[in-house]
Each structure stands twice: as structure tokens, then as C-alpha cells.
């Protein structure tokens, strides 16, 4: 892991640095123009957020049912990433909406449910921090419910008539847009994986530190 990590980090950084140039080559969209290019960061960030929520939920489930400590550490890392990528989605979305819909915010199904899902993971972090002893289990339960939210958020835009573009957009992307989109998606996923590993490593170190403290106290 230690040798692969720096290589992957450099690859991710290069991909990310290249992204704006790749995006600059894309054709402009008909109705939305230049501002639509936010799509190339907004949607991959949303994909990363959903993935983070799923990982957190599954890891939390494993912690609850199998008492797996490593799963709990992974869950914390995934929750933080869900908050970070969720913040990116919730900021880039309104910046795009301001131009294309004329308003910063709309209370439609997809946007509202995304905000609520984000808040669930913020609550996860709050409970972890301020919940005292046994907070791991409390937050794990919350994450399980948060994960159940993900499919709901995803399909909400197809069920209700909303102003948000439907999920049919991505499969039907025209050629000039498809390449750059998947390029950005891959770099976001790679970045997500790396950040997850890094953050989980921090949790592992903290656990080891706690054990060292206990050892020091015993002497």
C-alpha cells in the first residue's frame, strides 16, 4: 500500500490538473452555454458522494453486526468524504442553477433529498464528535439509514417532475461530451479512493495512539 500510494496520488493529481483543459475542449451546450461545463465536476462529485454514502452505510452495517473495528474506521472516513463531496455538489449546483434556472435554489425532489442526505452525514460527524462513549454505534445506525436514502435520491428525479436534469442525460451524452465526462468521473473516483485510504489510515493511527496511551498509563 505504501509504495502504490504516492504513485496513485501523482496520477490523481495529474488527472485532476488536466481536467480543466479537457473540459475546455468540449462543445458548448445549446440552451445553457458555457455554464453547463460545471456538469463535468458536479456529476462526478455527486457520484463520489453516493459512493461514499454507500461505503459508509455498508461499513457501518459490518461494524454493527460483525463488531469489525476496521469497518468502523472506514465508515468514519467515508462519512467525512460524503460531507466533502456533498458540499461540492451543493455549491456547484447552485452556481450552475443561478445561470440556467435563474435562481440559486429550488425545493425540488432531487435537490431537497440530496441536502437531507448531506445533513445525515454531517449529523454522523457531530454524533461521533460529541456523542461520548458508544457514539460509534449511534453513528453507525444513522449511516445505515443514510445509505437507505441513496437510491431514493437517485430515482427521485425520475419519479417527480422536477427542474433538475434526469438520469437519462448521462447515457445519452453526445461524443464530444462523453469522453471528458468519463475522464473527470474516473479522476474523481480515483481521488475518492485515495482520500478514503488516507483518512482511514489516520483513524488507524489514532487507534494505535490510543493503545499506546493505555500502555504508557500501565507503566
Amino acid at each position: 500500500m505504501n509504495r502504490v500510494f504516492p504513485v496513485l496520488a501523482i496520477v490523481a493529481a495529474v488527472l485532476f490538473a488536466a481536467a480543466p483543459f479537457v473540459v475546455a475542449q468540449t462543445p458548448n451546450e445549446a440552451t445553457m452555454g458555457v455554464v453547463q461545463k460545471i456538469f463535468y465536476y458536479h456529476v462526478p462529485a455527486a457520484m463520489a458522494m453516493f459512493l461514499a454514502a454507500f461505503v459508509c452505510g455498508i461499513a457501518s452495517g459490518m461494524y454493527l453486526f460483525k463488531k469489525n473495528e476496521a469497518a468502523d474506521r472506514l465508515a468514519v472516513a467515508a462519512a467525512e468524504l460524503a460531507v466533502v463531496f456533498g458540499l461540492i455538489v451543493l455549491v456547484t449546483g447552485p452556481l450552475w442553477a443561478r445561470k440556467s434556472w435563474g435562481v440559486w435554489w429550488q425545493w425540488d425532489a432531487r435537490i431537497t433529498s440530496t441536502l437531507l442526505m448531506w445533513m445525515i452525514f454531517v449529523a454522523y460527524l457531530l454524533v461521533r464528535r460529541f456523542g461520548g462513549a458508544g457514539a460509534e454505534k449511534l453513528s453507525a445506525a444513522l449511516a445505515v439509514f443514510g445509505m437507505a436514502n441513496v437510491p431514493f435520491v437517485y430515482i427521485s428525479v425520475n419519479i417527480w417532475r422536477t427542474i433538475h436534469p434526469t438520469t437519462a442525460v448521462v447515457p445519452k451524452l453526445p461524443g464530444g461530451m462523453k469522453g471528458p465526462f468519463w475522464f473527470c468521473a474516473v479522476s474523481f473516483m480515483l481521488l475518492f479512493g485515495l482520500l478514503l485510504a488516507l483518512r482511514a489510515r489516520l483513524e488507524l493511527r489514532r487507534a494505535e495512539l490510543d493503545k499506546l496511551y493505555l500502555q504508557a498509563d500501565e507503566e
Partner: protein
Amino acid sequence: MQNAKCRMQYARRRLAVLLMLLTIAAAVAPAAAFAQPPQGSPQEEFVPVKDLPQQEQLPAAPLLVSAYAFVWVALLVYVWMVWRRLLKVEREMRDLAGRINQPGR
């Protein structure tokens, strides 16, 4: 002991503020639910601008640039935060390991 109690009280107060904010949000949501339904139908696919006869480019550069800048800044800040905590924990571990290995204290 006093310090721990103060910290607990501070934490409680922060939580109380958060609860108030959530309450306000809960009060606003039903009113917002009665807002006008959004205009326009959802897009089913993206169409490149060259496929239409004439279309002006909308001057949206500041929004685009801020969006990309925010993404970069957010990710960099997060990476920096994690890295900083990691370094701190590793430093503490080295200090502790040194103290444990010393005979007696």
C-alpha cells in the same frame, strides 16, 4: 476537572445552537413547500450548441470559474486537514514510544 466541565458546557452550547438552526430550517421547509412548482420540463439529453442554427454564448464565466475554483479549494483544504492531523498523530506516537522505551519515568 474544571477544564473538562467547561469543555462539556461549550460542546452543549454548540449543539444547542445547531438545534436552533435545525428548528428554523424545519419551520421554513413547509412554507417553501408551497412555493411555485418549478417552471420548464426536465432535460432528457444535452445538445451541443453547434447542432443548432444560431445560439449566443451566455456570459457565465464567473460562475464557471468559481465552481471549479471551489472544487479545487475544497479538496485541497480537506487533504491538508487530513495530512496535518496525520502528522500530529504520528508525532505523538513517536513521543510516546520514546517514553515507553525509557526505563522508569
